[in-house]
């Protein structure tokens, strides 16, 4: 399948600019947006994400084949679900109560499953949430490099997951496919792959062991 070439990153905090830079290097046309005026992030974009285009969120989303959510999870609750209708959405957010506080809406179940429920008109894939933003760029390596590290891709829709497998591969990670959003719970805070940057073999082993511990 042909890879979508336009990508929108929502969020210009710690994580969004890092993902945007990796996507630009991977050959995507990248727009970045916050909840506010693109003028407010013009200087940030020029210096920190050269090559990206600051836009209003609705415009960035409308033109994008892939939308990456890189905002604090509590801010996600402010997004009207209709804005993302028909889109392939990468959920790079985390429900991390020990670090960001508890949220009632996310207490029951995997955070990306709850995101997908709220975005019923979108196709949600969980990825790019489990490697720390301070390491994500530094550890990226082209395909075939011996010390290339693994990154998980979890989704219920095979075509959508395949597109994100392609995105991660181009960004510099060995994609490891998890068969559903439910299975993607293994990428969440508290799991052995969260905050680690593992080789594909170690990553698969950690996922298997974690899956066993859940049964």
């Amino acid at each position: 399948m042909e890879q979508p070439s336009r990508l929108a990153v929502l969020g210009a905090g710690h994580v969004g600019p890092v993902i945007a830079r990796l996507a630009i290097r991977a050959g995507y046309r990248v727009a970045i947006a916050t909840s506010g005026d693109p003028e407010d992030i013009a200087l940030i974009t020029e210096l920190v994400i050269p090559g990206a285009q600051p836009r209003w969120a609705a415009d960035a989303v409308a033109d994008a084949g892939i939308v990456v959510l890189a905002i604090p999870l509590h801010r996600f609750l402010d997004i009207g679900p209709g804005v993302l209708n028909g889109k392939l959405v990468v959920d790079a957010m985390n429900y991390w109560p020990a670090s960001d506080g508890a949220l009632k809406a996310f207490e029951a179940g995997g955070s990306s499953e709850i995101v997908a429920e709220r975005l019923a008109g979108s196709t949600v894939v969980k990825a790019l949430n489990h490697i720390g933003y301070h390491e994500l760029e530094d550890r990226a390596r082209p395909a075939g490099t011996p010390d290339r590290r693994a990154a998980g891709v979890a989704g219920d829709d095979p075509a959508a997951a395949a597109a994100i497998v392609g995105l991660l591969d181009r960004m510099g990670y060995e994609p490891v496919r998890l068969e559903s959003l439910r299975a993607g719970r293994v990428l969440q805070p508290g799991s052995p792959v969260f905050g680690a940057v593992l080789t594909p073999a170690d990553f698969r082993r950690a996922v298997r062991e974690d899956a066993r511990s859940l049964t």
Partner: protein
Amino acid sequence: MTYTFGLDTFGDRNGGTDGTPLSHAQTIRNVVEEGVFAEQAGVDFFGIGEHHTDYFPMPAGDVVLAAIAARTDRIRLGSAVTVLSSDDPVRVFQRYSTLNAVSGGRAEVILGRGSSIESFPLFGYDLADYEELFEEKATLFAELLKGGPVTWEGKTRAPLLSQDVVPHTESGPFPAWIGVGGSPQSVVRAARLGFSLMLAIIGGPPARFAVYSELFQRALDKFGRAPLPVGVHSPGHVAATDQQAKAEFWPRWRDIIALVAEERGFAIPTEESFDWETGPHGALYVGSPETVAQKIATNLRALGATRFDLKYGMPGLTHEQLGTNIELYGRQVIPRVRQLLG
């Protein structure tokens, strides 16, 4: 170029020589001694970071700084950081302008969150409100620093109407920084409000922060402000040799990161990652005076920074080990960095 070199502590609970932890009270008394000793060793700044845990029993650093002020003449004294979001900006201003009075004008404040989150539930704040709390309170703090009557209204505390907030400072605002961990929007906020920028670099390659330094100066210009200093805060440990410094620091660092990792649910770092962080491209300054000095000089240059604060200590290190660290940092590292930066 004038460079400033500081030491920061979180009140890391000391280990005794037999390995058992010292009491909170003894650790705090030791911090007072360490601050006094830092001045004797030639350090320019001594900072205390707010924490509320058994391993960092340091919720009221300003009280400790006042004790150090009474026994010193020259060293600058400040927070590193004050968790402003869960505090009252008026009280923070009052405590540090009081410290400024006690110390004869040596107070500073670094505002931020650090990685500290314990103060939110302790004081009844919701971590999800962090952004709004910090934005409002930092804005009010910038107003308070100007001196004179303050009029302010917001959602996070009672309004102020032409309020005279005492004690007044004798010679204008004391230095105030915002500590930033890597969000470009936080860098722009510091510039917009007129705070200096303290880059907290605790993992990953420091060079990736160079763009934030440029962003800060460009943003200051955009907001019509004069240039302001950029500083770096990073953890480390200095001992006679690289080997000794790493041997002393690694088990303490591993234990504390493992504890935090368990509390917050992320993977525990390996010795391999520690070796990388203490190497030439990592964020930790662990080694002999020469190793640490070279790394500081390289990164200050790369980041366009004029201030370096070494966060010394780790829970479990002894008061004696910390004393050696302070002495080597003050008497060997700082002069060597000044020499390297010419």
